[in-house]
């Protein structure tokens, strides 16, 4: 129990005595830390009050240009007035309950899948949920059946488009990345070469190039009159791109699994796929949760690049709203701040979930 000896004595004294002791130890421990503390304090005092005044005290929610002209602070009225344009893009106004419903279905499936860690009973429902849910979302968004009017996907936009692009991206990129990682480890030269070439080529070009190729070059190679949907091309581009990065993440995990584990599988006479599924992958994937989630977060943010091929993701619809009326254009700071807040919310949730997942799956290693 040598560790206990190093623990500090339990704090004693009144609250103020303890506060002084705490700040001496944590904030004013030597001249350098004192300087840092004072510097940070000055920075906060310099930054926060004006920011607060701008964003809250002097701000307005009035959804008119006149209302915004009267205040000195933030014009949240821009977001208020254009909220539906920002959230749903050019999706037909009267039909916007459909993307709302589609988003609810999508979020429910995602929560159901993520919750399976905590509630193992949900596990066997994950695949059926997606198999049923994705077509439901498709029907809601596209329509054309069941009395719903048909909506071309050049009209999809905003948050539903961002969520669809990134969640479909994750679902397809994950298995593809896994296969590529296994392929790269393979003893079969053909499979290995294909995997290596694919990974290196895709990793060697920026996503913007992949999207640009998919959107501008690819149609030129098709016969006249044959067109492949723009959104589908972008979605495939995102999947192919993310898969290459995930493959390298998974390869890291596979390499971290001790050699003996592979041999254990062989000695039990398990087939390649059995030993992968039962022994290797559970260990390898658990090891790479942080970088995997990292890839997902960066993919989520990368979906904003589809704006260069004329699709309006959530950030794109903010820009669309800024241009809806030239009088709104000067309130771009408010528009981008709103987009940043939503993006932060989603990315931060992903990061928190990954931390939780790591903790849950490490339970077996705790002593």
């Amino acid at each position, binding site marked *: 129990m040598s560790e206990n000896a190093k623990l500090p004595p339990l704090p004693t004294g009144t609250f103020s005595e303890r506060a002084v002791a705490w700040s001496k130890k944590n904030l004013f421990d030597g001249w350098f830390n004192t300087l840092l503390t004072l510097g940070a304090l000055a920075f906060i005092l310099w930054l926060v009050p004006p920011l607060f005044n701008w964003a809250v005290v002097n701000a307005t929610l009035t959804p008119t240009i006149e209302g915004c002209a009267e205040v000195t602070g933030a014009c949240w009225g821009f977001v208020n007035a254009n909220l539906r344009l920002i959230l749903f893009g050019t999706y037909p106004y009267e039909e916007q309950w459909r993307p709302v419903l589609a988003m609810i279905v999508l979020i429910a499936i995602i929560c159901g899948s993520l919750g399976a860690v905590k509630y193992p009973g949900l596990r066997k429902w994950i695949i059926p949920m997606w198999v049923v849910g994705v077509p439901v979302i498709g029907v809601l968004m596209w329509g054309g059946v069941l009395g719903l009017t048909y909506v071309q996907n050049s009209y999809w936009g905003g948050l539903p488009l961002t969520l669809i692009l990134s969640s479909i991206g994750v679902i397809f990129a994950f298995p593809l990345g896994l296969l590529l990682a296994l392929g790269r480890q393979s003893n079969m030269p053909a499979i290995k070469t294909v995997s290596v070439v694919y990974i290196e080529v895709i990793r060697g070009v920026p996503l913007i190039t992949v999207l640009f190729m998919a959107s*501008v070059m690819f149609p030129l190679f098709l016969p006249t009159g044959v067109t492949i949907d723009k959104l589908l091309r972008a979605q495939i581009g995102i999947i192919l791109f993310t898969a290459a990065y995930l493959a390298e993440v998974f390869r890291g995990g596979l390499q971290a699994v001790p050699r003996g584990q592979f041999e254990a599988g062989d000695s039990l006479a398990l087939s390649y796929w059995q030993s992968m599924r039962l022994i290797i992958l559970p260990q390898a994937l658990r090891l790479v949760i942080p970088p995997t989630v990292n890839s997902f977060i960066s993919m989520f943010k990368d979906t904003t690049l589809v704006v260069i091929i004329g699709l309006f993701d959530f950030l794109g619809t903010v820009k669309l709203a800024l241009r809806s009326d030239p009088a709104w254009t000067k309130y771009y700071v408010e528009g981008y701040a709103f987009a940043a807040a939503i993006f932060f919310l989603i990315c931060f949730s992903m990061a928190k979930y990954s931390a939780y997942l790591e903790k849950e799956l490490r339970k077996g290693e705790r002593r």
Partner: protein
Amino acid sequence: MKIKTILAAGAMTVAAVAAQNAQAGAVLDGVKAKGFVQCGVNTGLPGFSAANAEGKWEGIDVDVCRAIAAAVLGDANSVQYTPLTAAQRFTALQSGEIDILSRNTTATTTRDAKLGLTFVGINYYDGQGFLIPKALGVNSATELDGATVCVEPGTTTELNLADYFRAKGMSFEPVVIENINEATAAFFSGRCDVYTTDASGLASIRTTMAENPDDYVILPEIISKEPLGPVVAQGDEQWADISRWALTAMVEAEEFGVTMANVDDMKANSTNPGIQRLLGVSPGMGEALGLDEEWAYRIVKNVGNYGESYEKNVTAKLGLERGLNALWTDGGLQYAWPVR
């Protein structure tokens, strides 16, 4: 540069193939079968094509597509819009993804001849100009020697600027800023003496972004020609004709004083043979285009004449006067070929 070369080569190949394959009437038949016109528009340029707060596309470029839909299908709302970036626009047209491109596109020789496109008219005459603070005390662009100029990169704007100053033997200091918001912010904060872009853009920036618009002036010199108009793919002459005459009918209607409000009255009572021909009272025009005789009547009834479209979109949104886009009878360049 290399990508551009490859793109151009690819585009030309496709254009050649497209020209062989396309048959007269194919696009019209396709549009009738689909029940809508697929229209390529800008991803957001106020006054030309931009989504309103309800997400509906509006603008002078959008109205061209609405006019064609009204003429061909009878309903100006039978249009599906494909927002396109500058890089995508010609591919979308060549590959058949869209039926018409109405996206503030400058008509030039190479585009018309080499890329397999047909410009069907000019719905907006634009040109590059200079915006300066009044306090600078400059009355003409020829006095701008040594000025710092805010400009967005990668556009013909930047090249025109350099050409103009070189031709005049003047020097300038470019401040190149990628994003239009930041570029205008830099200009209004005084980082540069001059902001340059197309005159339509300058006017809207002046009215909407300046603290006090009266402190800024647009110099009289226009240093480039930017005739903007709708484009169709080469090879389907009938579709090109329909598009050309739909646009022409809007201008012709304005010349005759036919408006959305008085079109029914004009149709019933006008004795002017020109108006009678335009509105289908004396038949022949629709038949010539492969449409019915009320094609132009429906355009004016549903979309309005050119002047009404301009007022509603460009003047109301950007505060721009007609200028070069006034009718020729008012000293502008809009001159409709006679519908007869």
